[in-house]
C-alpha cells in the first residue's frame, strides 16, 4: 500500500508546478465560466423586464386608441341631435312639399312658369329652395368638421389621461420585485385622481354645446359666400361639386391664417373653464379648477396651439372630406360604374382606370344634388358602423400625435 502512496506522492512532487498550473487554469476557467453565466442570466432578466415593459406600453396605448373610437361613438348622437334640431333641413323639405301640394290642389300648372298669377307661394318656394341649399351644405360640411374635431380632440384627451394610467400601471408592474419603493420613496406623484379625470373629460361638453355653434356659424358664412351665388339650375358635375366644397373649406379653414381659430371650438377661453364644469354637470363642489386639472388643461392647450396639431388636423380634414367625396361618387357615376362592373371581365384594368379618369360622370342641376348632400350627414354622424370614425381613427398622423401626447411624461423628450 505504502508503495502506491509513495509512487503517487513522488509523481505529484515531480510534477507539482504542472499541477498548480492545471489547477489554476481549471479554477480560473471555472470562475470565468460562472461569471459569464451570471452575466448571461442578468442580461436575460433585464431583457425580459424590458420586453414586458414594452408589451405593456404597447397594449395600453392601443387599448387607449380603441377607447377613443368608442368614446367618440358615444358622443356622436348628441352632436347629431344638435345638428338636426338646429339645422332642420327636413322641416324645410316638408314645407316645400306643402307648397307643392297646395299648388296641385289650387290647380296651378307648371312649376316654373314665369309671371304666374299667384306669386306669393312661388316666391316662398324659391326662398325655401335657397334656404334649403345653404342649410344642406352647411349642415353636411359642418358635420364633417365637427366629427373630425371631436375625434382629434378626444384622441388628445384620452392620450393625455392614458399617459397617467400607464404611469400608474408601471407602479403595479414593478411592485413585485421592489416592494419597499412603492411605499413612496420613488416617484411620489400619483397620477390623476378619478375626480380630475371626470372633470377633464367633461370638457368635451364644450364642443358639443358651445363650440359646435361657432363652427356651424363659420361654415355658414363660408357657404353663404361660395354657394349663395350659385343658381339652383346650375348644371353640376362631380368635379364641380368637389370644387365648391373645396372653396368652402378654404374659407372656413383660412379665416384667421392657419385655421388657428378652429381650436377655439374645442376649449373655452382660458380662465372660463369653471363655467364649463358648472354647465357640464359636475357636482356642486367640483367647480374649481385645481392645479391637477389646470396642468392637464395647460398641456392640452399647448398641444392645440402646436403646429403639429394644426398639421394633423388638416390631414384629418383632408381624409374626412375625401371620404365625403367617396360617398358622393355613386350619385354621379352609379350607371357607368355598374356598367363597367359588368364589363370587368373583358376590359383590362389599366384601360378601366383611364376610362374612369376621362369620365366626368353625370351632370345634374344643383337642385338635384341638394337632397344627396343633405342625406350625407347621416353617414357622417349616424352611420352604423360609422366609417368616418373608423377611417379617421386609423389616420397614421393622428395616431403618431397620440404617441407624442401619450409619451410626454418627461420634460425633455430627445
Amino acid at each position, binding site marked *: 500500500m505504502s508503495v502506491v502512496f509513495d509512487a503517487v506522492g513522488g509523481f505529484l512532487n515531480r510534477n507539482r508546478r504542472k499541477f498548480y*498550473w492545471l489547477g489554476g487554469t481549471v479554477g480560473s476557467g471555472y470562475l470565468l465560466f460562472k461569471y459569464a453565466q451570471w452575466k448571461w442570466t442578468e442580461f436575460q432578466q433585464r431583457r425580459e*423586464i*424590458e420586453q414586458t*415593459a*414594452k408589451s*405593456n*406600453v*404597447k397594449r395600453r*396605448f392601443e387599448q387607449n386608441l380603441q377607447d377613443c373610437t368608442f368614446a367618440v361613438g358615444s358622443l356622436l348622437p348628441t352632436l347629431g341631435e344638435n345638428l338636426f334640431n338646429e339645422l332642420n333641413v327636413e322641416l324645410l323639405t316638408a314645407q316645400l312639399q306643402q307648397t307643392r301640394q297646395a299648388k296641385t290642389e289650387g290647380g296651378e300648372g307648371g312649376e316654373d312658369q314665369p309671371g304666374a298669377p299667384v306669386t306669393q307661394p312661388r316666391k316662398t318656394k324659391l326662398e325655401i329652395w335657397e334656404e334649403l341649399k345653404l342649410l344642406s351644405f352647411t349642415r353636411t360640411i359642418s358635420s364633417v368638421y365637427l366629427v373630425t374635431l371631436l375625434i382629434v380632440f378626444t384622441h388628445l384627451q384620452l392620450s393625455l389621461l392614458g399617459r397617467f394610467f400607464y*404611469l400608474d400601471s*408601471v*407602479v403595479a408592474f*414593478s411592485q413585485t420585485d*421592489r416592494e*419597499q*419603493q*412603492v411605499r413612496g*420613496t*420613488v*416617484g411620489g*406623484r400619483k397620477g390623476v385622481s378619478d375626480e380630475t379625470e371626470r372633470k377633464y373629460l367633461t370638457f368635451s361638453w364644450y364642443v358639443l354645446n358651445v363650440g359646435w355653434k361657432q363652427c356651424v356659424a363659420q361654415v355658414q358664412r363660408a357657404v353663404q359666400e361660395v354657394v349663395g351665388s350659385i343658381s339652383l339650375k346650375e348644371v353640376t358635375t362631380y368635379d364641380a361639386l368637389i370644387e365648391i366644397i373645396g372653396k368652402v373649406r378654404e374659407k372656413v379653414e383660412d379665416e384667421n391664417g392657419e385655421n388657428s381659430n378652429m381650436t377655439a371650438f374645442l376649449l373655452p377661453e382660458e380662465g372660463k373653464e369653471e363655467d364649463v364644469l358648472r354647465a357640464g354637470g359636475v357636482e356642486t363642489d367640483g367647480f374649481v379648477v385645481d392645479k391637477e386639472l389646470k*396642468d392637464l388643461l*395647460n*398641456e392640452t*392647450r*399647448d*398641444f392645440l*396651439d*402646436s*403646429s*403639429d396639431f394644426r*398639421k*394633423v388636423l388638416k390631414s384629418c380634414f383632408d381624409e374626412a372630406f375625401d371620404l365625403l367625396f367617396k360617398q358622393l361618387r355613386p350619385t354621379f357615376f352609379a350607371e357607368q360604374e355598374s356598367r363597367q362592373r359588368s364589363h370587368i371581365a373583358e376590359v383590362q384594368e389599366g384601360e378601366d382606370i383611364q376610362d374612369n379618369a376621362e369620365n366626368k360622370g353625370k351632370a345634374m342641376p344643383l337642385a338635384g344634388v341638394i337632397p344627396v348632400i343633405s342625406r350625407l350627414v347621416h353617414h357622417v354622424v349616424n352611420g352604423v358602423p360609422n366609417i368616418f370614425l373608423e377611417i379617421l381613427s386609423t389616420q*397614421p*398622423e393622428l*395616431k*403618431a*400625435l397620440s*404617441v*407624442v401626447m*401619450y*409619451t*410626454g*411624461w*418627461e*420634460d*425633455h*423628450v*430627445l
Partner: protein
Amino acid sequence: MSNLVKKYEDFVLHNAPQISGIESGLRSLTYILPGRFNDADMASEAIFATVNLMSLYHDTILSAAAHQQNPEAPTSNFNRYTRHMLLSGGWYKKVAYTLTMVQMVEVLVEMGARKLGGRKGRGRVVLGIEVIKVVCRTALLKLSQNRMLLHSAVPERDYDPSTIQPPTTSKPGTWTGKRTGKHHVHVDVITQKGGYDQAVQFLLSKALTERASSPVDLLNRLGCHKWAEWVFIFRPLVYVLTLRRYGPKSYKPYLISLTLELGSLLASLNRPQTSLEKDETKRRCWLLLYYLLRNPVYERFTKERLDAFVEGARKRPLISLFAGILRDYQPLWEKWHFYTSGY
C-alpha cells in the same frame, strides 16, 4: 471666437463618421504605446486624455443630432438621468463637466507635476485634484438634492457616430409648450422614416421599466443615508491626507480608506435601491479590487504573486498575451496615484 466654434460644430456634424474614425484610431494607439519607449507612458496618457476630452466635446454636438435622426433608439436609464440633470439648468452642467474633465486629465497632470515639480510637486497636485473633485462632487450632491453620485456625471455615448447623416434641415426636432414649458418631439421626426410603425417603435423605446416618469426619480433622494454618500465623496481626500501624514509604508491610510469605503457600501446595500442605484453599488463593489493594487498590500502581497504569474505565463499560449498587457501596465499603477485611486 463663437463664430469659429460654430464652424467647428458644423464641421463635426457634417463629418461625424470620419471624426469617430479618428477618435477610435487614436484610442487604439494608446493601448499599444505603454512601455514601448522612454516617456511613452506620458505620451500615451496625453493622447488618451485628449481623445477623451475630444469625444466629450463631440458628444455635446452629436448626441442631439443622433437622437433627432433616431428618435426610436432606446435610452438607458443612466443616460436618461444624466441627460436630464444636465438639461435641468443652473450650475449642474458646469460642475458636471468640470468634474468629468478633471477626471480625464488627472493622471496626465500627475505625470506632468512629477516631471516638473518632483515628488513634492506631484504630492501637492494630487492633493489639489482630490480637493477639486470633492468640491465638485459635493456640489453635485447638493444640486441633485442628495441623490447618489453615479460613476459619471455626463451621459455615455449611446449612438454610433459613423451612422450620423449630415443634417439636412436646421429645424429643431422638438417644440416647446408655452404653458407647461415641456419639450415634445415633432410628429415628423418620429414618422420620418417609417410612418406610424416608426412612431410605435418610438413608443416602445419610451417603455418604462420602473416608476420614474421623470428621470430624477430613477434615483432616490437620500434621507438619513446621505452620510454614506458624504463618506464616499471624502474617502479619496482622506486617503491622500493620511498618506501624506503616515507615508506609503503605513497600513493606516490603507485601512482607514478601506473602512470608510466598506461602511459607505454597506449602508448603500442596506437601503432600498432603484435599479440604477443597484448598478452603481455593484460597480463600487468591483472598485474594491483596487485595494489589491494599493500599497502596502500591493508591495507585500499582490506584487509578488503578480510577478510570479507574469513570469509563469510567459511561455504559455493565450495567457501570455494577457500577461504581456499586465506587464506593460504594471509600472503605471505602481507609479501613479490616480491609476489606482482616481475614481
